[in-house]
């Protein structure tokens, strides 16, 4: 009970401050709607089925981009960690891409990929790829060389070395990359859904802002936040199950 309380205490304090600030009338409701108004907008979006429609559209983009980024990020991280030649070859291009904000390439993505789903998924991909790639690379390169020697003495084949040593040793780092990558993919949604979208939580937020429906903007933001926290908790549980060790038993 106490553990649960420690998680809830800060959000409850923020909610209380929000209540106080929005009910004093000092801040216009256009800028800060009351929690009740936001709850009302939430209920009406749920009742009309709009919220689930937007969540579904965003989740599809986010999960597709994240799945692509995870597959390629882990694969490239594993290859580049083991091959100096591959790492040197791709280094400058990857670094250039890493420091370029994904939103800066939106015009190019529209030109190249059109205005359908592809550029939105590409934005999500670009946002989540690098945390996954970098963490995988670092984790695999950080495998204890003393354990690598044990693998040599025990005559591990390349497959055994990967399965019994590299992968389990790098798993915590890869998981951290996946958590960060998922967070970034979710955060990139609003930017991605600015591109000629007609659905999605990012679209809901930007469209509501244009019509000055601040309470709906709040619903969109809170939904993204809550789903992000929820998914992070799901990922954490999943990783804990997949990790071997005394805590996992």
């Amino acid at each position, binding site marked *: 009970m106490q553990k649960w309380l420690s998680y809830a205490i800060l959000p409850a304090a923020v909610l209380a401050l929000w209540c106080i600030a929005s009910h004093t009338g000092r801040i216009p409701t256009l800028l800060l709607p009351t929690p009740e108004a936001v709850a009302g907008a939430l209920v009406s979006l749920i009742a009309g089925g709009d919220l689930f429609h937007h969540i579904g559209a965003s989740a599809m983009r986010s999960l597709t981009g994240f799945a692509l980024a995870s597959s390629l990020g882990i694969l490239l991280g594993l290859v580049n960690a083991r091959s100096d030649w591959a790492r040197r070859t791709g280094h400058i291009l990857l670094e250039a891409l890493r420091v370029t904000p994904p939103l800066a390439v939106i015009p190019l993505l529209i030109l190249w990929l059109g205005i359908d789903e592809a550029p939105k998924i590409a934005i999500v991909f670009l946002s989540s790829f690098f945390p996954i790639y970098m963490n995988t690379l670092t984790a695999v390169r950080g495998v204890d060389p*003393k*354990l690598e*020697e*044990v693998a*040599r*003495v*025990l005559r591990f084949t390349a497959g*055994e070395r990967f399965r*019994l*040593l590299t992968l*389990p*040793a790098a*798993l915590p780092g890869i998981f951290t990359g996946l958590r960060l990558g998922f967070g970034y993919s979710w955060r990139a949604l609003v930017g991605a859904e600015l591109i000629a979208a007609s659905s999605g939580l990012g679209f809901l937020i930007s469209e509501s802002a244009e019509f000055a429906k601040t309470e709906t903007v709040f619903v969109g933001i809170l939904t993204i936040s809550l789903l992000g926290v929820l998914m992070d908790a799901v990922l954490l549980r999943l990783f804990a199950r997949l*990790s*071997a*060790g*005394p805590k996992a038993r």
Partner: protein
Amino acid sequence: MFRIEIDRLVKRFHGESGLVEPVKDLSLSLEAGEVCSVIGQSGCGKTTLLRLIAGLERPDGGRIAFVDESGRSAEPVISIVFQEPRLFPWMNVRRNIELAVRNLPEDERGRKVDAVLDLVGLKAVARSYPVELSGGMAQRVGLARALVNDPDILLMDEAFGSLDALMRQRLYREFVDILEKRPMTVVLVTHDVTEAVQLSGRIVLLAAGSVGRSWSIGLPYPRSLGTEGVGELAEQVLSELFNID
């Protein structure tokens, strides 16, 4: 059983302070089934020699040959016990030991692991993870992993160093028993002269990368600190060790 022939072995490293040559023109012949302790001051090349025999380092000169009973060069099964246990932290004790016999059929693998767990007194913690073990227990798992595949050559790098005195004496006895039942060629790198005298048939003193002196020990097994001759020989070796500079 295998004989080890080391001929004019050289190993160099390029360190920050320039070229270092821990093993310099080292020649040594180890008989099949011999237990040879290698002693010497820090940096004299003991561990490098062990790593060269294990194939973890490539020599820059000379050669190491493994000769079987028929006199032919062959590839022996080599196990090594490192200074630290080097266990895979995501595997329990049993799985860590099983790694060395992973290619055997399941029932044979199980039997071998059970036997070696019994030998090192770790049956009760077979399902524990390395993080849950004391330093001494973890080192015994490392020893069990090295013994479980019946090696032809066993290399030990300060393997008993982290054990408490009681466990060390117990394992010395067990170790001598194992070698009686299943002889193998053993190279034991140690700082502990009394350990070398209790366990080995020969002590080789390394100085500046090559063999300085060696002692053959004819005392009967099992030996302990109280065995006649052990203390005297240990003193003699120790004084020789002090004289090297």
